Every structure is written in structure tokens, then in C-alpha cells.
């Protein structure tokens, strides 16, 4: 049974949207994805989503009577998990057509209560006492160790933001489009040494939705799911086993490549979750595209930039395009656009795309291998 993404769309706007609640962002994205697929809500019998307001309300608000629900909530990678789980559920006969939604008022915080992490939680006892203030002070903690062990320089770390801005410069929907230099990055405000502001992701409002079904049910040229993988490591960053490599990235990538039966040379286009500038470096190495310590120079030499041999984060990524908080949905959306030939910064002849999603801070990961045509 060939599983496909038969519809994909984002909210009409991304960025600062104080006039829209979290639920509205989900529902607008869902309606846009249904229209993209040429389907109605009555074609949907499965719903998956994460966070507020959850799959029950999404299904109810849209008037869907679901035969299958998935509320897997493992951070920004959750939507990649949903695609994988939806494929399994459809193959198992539990449902036929799954709607996956994301909406997050990450910037305006409309209808978006923050999860309470009490002083008796794991992080409350063993990390919050040390003055951590969200991902900028935790996700970033691994970088100095990586730099010491591999020789990655501050300039090479800055090059990640520069390379992605080259893509965003070609994308009218990107929040930041002006070209930047390494000097600009290193001159931007220090957030948490060694990370400057331009090495940290945006904080935006927005949403996206996908429709996963069988090839037979798709009504427009579908994107094929060739393989997928998922894994997890530590719930708190301080207990990540090796600060220079993500076990969850490696395990999810190996599983997805194995199921798809592809090699790295087959990959035309790559999306790696980029909440901070070091994450694509880990992703390139942990997925096996380059060897340990090579990703920084690889990006700095332009191989992931427009015209390079491995186009990476071609929407501009979380650093320049958008980052609502759970970015994974937008990484999938860009892969779908590239494989359909509809991207703003289109990669010529993109046939196979890989998406690596991160959840939490190297806590969970999932990888999808997508293709424009059936293999």
C-alpha cells in the first residue's frame, strides 16, 4: 500500500498574528490543506495533532467523526511522528485518510497557555534552579563541547545562519529576507554565549496541515512516503549522552533510510530542524551526509546554499522563515513544495527529499523520506 501526502498547506499568513487564536491557526491550516487536496472534511476519518487545543477539539470544530486519533506530543518533531503513525494506521486498516494539524500562537500567545513545569518536575529539580530561560539557554548547551571536540569555529557556526538567509532571500513568505554576513551574525546581540541573536530561531505565529492517505485516494499529484523513523533520547538536555551527536537523530535517520532503501547520493533536498544554528550541523552528521566534524566546513563552503549540491532548509528555516515553537510542520511543508516543484526557491529536479525533525532539545527525533513519484 503506497502512503502519500495528498494535501499540504500553511496558514494564509505567518509571523505576528494577534488577531488569530491558536485554534484558528489550526483550523485555517486544516481548511487550506483540504482545499489543496481537493477533499472535504467528510473524506477525513483520522485526526492527529499536538498541543492546544488537541485532536478532539480539532475534529469536533471541523465536524469530523474520527475513527482514529493521535495526540502524540513529543515537541516540534510531533508532526513527523504523526505522518509515520498515520501511515501505519492506514496500512493496518484503522482509517483511510488522516488530517494532521499544527497551529501555534508562539509570538502573540493567543489562546496558548504555557505548560506548567513545576518545581517538583524533573527539569524543575535539576535544571530550572540554574537560571535556564527556555531553549536559548538549554538547546545551546551542547555547542561548546562540539566546538572543542571537532574544531568548529564561531565563524562556521555563524555561516549556518548566513547560508539559510540566502534561501530566505528568495522566499517572499520568509520573515527575514535581507542578506546577512558572518560579521552581521557575530555583531548581533549575545543571547547565550556562544549564540548570538541571528543564530537563534524566530518566534512567530502560524500553522500548517497535511493530509495523509493512500495513493489511490489522492486527487492531485501526491508526494510519496518512502520511509520513516522515530526515536528519543533524554528528556532533559543535561542528560544527553554525548553532547557532540544526537542518538535520536541517528536512530530515526537510519530507520528511515533503511525503510526507503535509499542512499545519501539519492537525496536531492534536505530539511533539518533548525531552532539554533548548531542543529543542522548535528543533523548533517547524524544522518550520515558528512563525517563527524565536517558539517561546519561543508556549510561554510556553500554546499547547502543555493546552487550547492545538497540544498538545505530551502524555505530559510526556523532561523529566517518562521518558527512557531513546534517547527517540524513547516519543514515537511517545504519538502512537499519542493517535490511538487512549487517552492519559492525551487531546487531543480528535486525528486527525493529528507526531513529531520527535532523535538524538545535533542529529546525526540523523527525522519521522513519523501519522493515526488512512486519509486
Amino acid at each position, binding site marked *: 500500500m503506497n502512503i502519500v501526502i495528498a494535501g499540504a498547506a500553511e496558514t494564509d499568513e505567518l509571523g505576528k498574528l494577534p488577531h488569530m487564536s491558536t485554534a484558528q491557526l489550526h483550523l485555517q491550516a486544516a481548511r487550506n490543506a483540504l482545499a489543496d487536496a481537493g477533499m472535504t472534511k467528510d473524506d477525513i476519518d483520522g485526526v492527529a495533532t499536538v498541543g492546544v487545543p488537541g485532536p478532539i477539539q480539532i475534529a469536533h470544530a471541523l465536524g469530523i467523526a474520527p475513527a482514529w486519533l493521535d495526540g502524540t506530543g513529543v515537541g516540534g518533531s510531533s508532526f513527523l511522528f504523526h505522518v509515520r503513525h498515520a501511515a501505519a494506521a492506514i496500512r493496518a486498516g484503522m482509517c483511510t485518510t488522516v488530517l494532521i494539524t499544527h497551529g501555534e500562537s508562539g509570538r502573540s500567545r493567543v489562546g496558548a497557555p504555557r505548560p506548567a513545569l*513545576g*518545581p*517538583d518536575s*524533573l527539569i*524543575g*529539580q*535539576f*535544571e*530550572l*534552579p*540554574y*537560571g*535556564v*530561560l527556555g531553549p*536559548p*539557554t*538549554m538547546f*545551546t*548547551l*551542547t*555547542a*561548546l*563541547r562540539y566546538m*572543542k571536540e571537532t574544531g568548529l569555529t564561531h565563524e562556521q557556526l555563524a555561516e549556518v545562519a548566513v547560508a539559510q538567509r540566502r534561501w530566505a532571500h528568495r522566499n517572499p513568505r520568509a520573515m527575514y529576507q535581507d542578506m546577512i554576513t558572518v560579521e552581521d551574525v557575530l555583531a548581533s*546581540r*549575545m*543571547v*547565550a*554565549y*556562544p*549564540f548570538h541573536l541571528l543564530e537563534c530561531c524566530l518566534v512567530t505565529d502560524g500553522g500548517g496541515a497535511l493530509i495523509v492517505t493512500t495513493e489511490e485516494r489522492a486527487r492531485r499529484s501526491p508526494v510519496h512516503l518512502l520511509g520513516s523513523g522515530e526515536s528519543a533520547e533524554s528528556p*532533559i*538536555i*543535561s*542528560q544527553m549522552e554525548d*553532547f557532540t551527536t544526537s542518538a535520536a537523530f541517528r536512530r530515526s535517520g537510519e530507520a528511515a533510510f533503511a525503510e526507503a532503501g535509499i542512499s545519501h547520493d539519492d537525496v536531492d533536498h534536505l530539511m533539518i530542524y533548525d531552532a539554533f544554528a548548531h542543529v543542522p550541523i548535528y543533523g548533517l552528521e547524524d544522518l550520515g551526509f558528512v563525517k563527524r566534524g565536517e558539517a561546519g566546513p561543508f556549510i561554510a563552503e556553500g554546499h547547502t546554499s543555493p546552487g550547492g549540491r545538497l540544498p538545505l532548509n530551502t524555505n530559510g528555516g526556523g532561523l529566517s522563515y518562521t518558527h512557531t515553537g513546534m517547527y517540524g510542520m513547516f519543514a515537511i511543508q517545504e519538502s512537499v513544495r519542493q517535490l511538487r516543484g512549487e517552492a519559492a526557491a525551487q531546487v531543480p529536479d528535486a525528486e527525493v527529499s529528507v526531513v529531520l525533525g527535532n523535538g524538545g532539545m535533542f529529546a525526540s527525533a523523527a525522519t521522513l523520506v519523501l519522493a515526488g513519484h512512486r519509486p
Partner: protein
Amino acid sequence: MTASHKPVPKPTPETQPFWDGTAEGLLRIQRCSACSRHYFYPRPACPHCGSDDVTWVTSCGRATLYSYVISHRPAPGFEQEGPYAIAVVELEEGVRMMTNIVGVEIMPENLPLDMELRVVFEQRGDVHVPLFEPAGGPNR
């Protein structure tokens, strides 16, 4: 040392021995009797071999600096600190934990990775939080 406005951890049954230890000036971690390995954070069974034959032992309190960031945007309670180091240290017993580095001016050139550290404790409310300073003592 006291710091009343910083976040105060709230012990739970499986972590109580750890926090009882810090109140006595002891850094306690768990050790598996079956495979002889140490582990942290507190859990009822060994994450390495799965045995529940585990005991609490006192760490020597010596550590090295594994990685860190210097936060330039203070969390609640840290407003008076200036930029501060959020670090992960590796204890001589092989386990790692998050902490703050104290007793040294917080600048990258003063904080080379793998520098030797020792534990100190800071009282917050009823709880004592483990922090780390240079092994030779404070140098400012």
C-alpha cells in the same frame, strides 16, 4: 550563601535522598550494585543494566567542565548576577549534572572546557542546591 528569589526545587520521593544529602553538604548519586556503575538523575533502577539493586553513595564532589553557555538574559532570581554560566559538569564518578559555575568571573577565557571543579552548596529556602567552583577555590 543564600539566594531566596531563585527557583527552589521541590523534592519528590525518589529524589528526597539527593536533597537530604545536599542539606548535609553531601552530593549523593546512585550506584548499581549489579553492574557497579553510577547514575544520575535519581531513578528506582539502573538505566544501564536494569537492576533495581541500587544504593545511594556520596560523590567525591570533584568534577570537570563538560559544556556551558553564558546567559545574557537573566531568568527570574538571576537579575543581580550579570551574565551567568549555565553548565553541565562531569563528576569523577562519570555522571553529569547541570549546575552554575561560581567563584570565578564569568568570561569564556576563564572557563576552558575540562577545567577542574569542586562542589559547593547554596541554600534556597529549605533546599540546598549544588553549584561548582574552581577546584583550587574561588579566584575572584
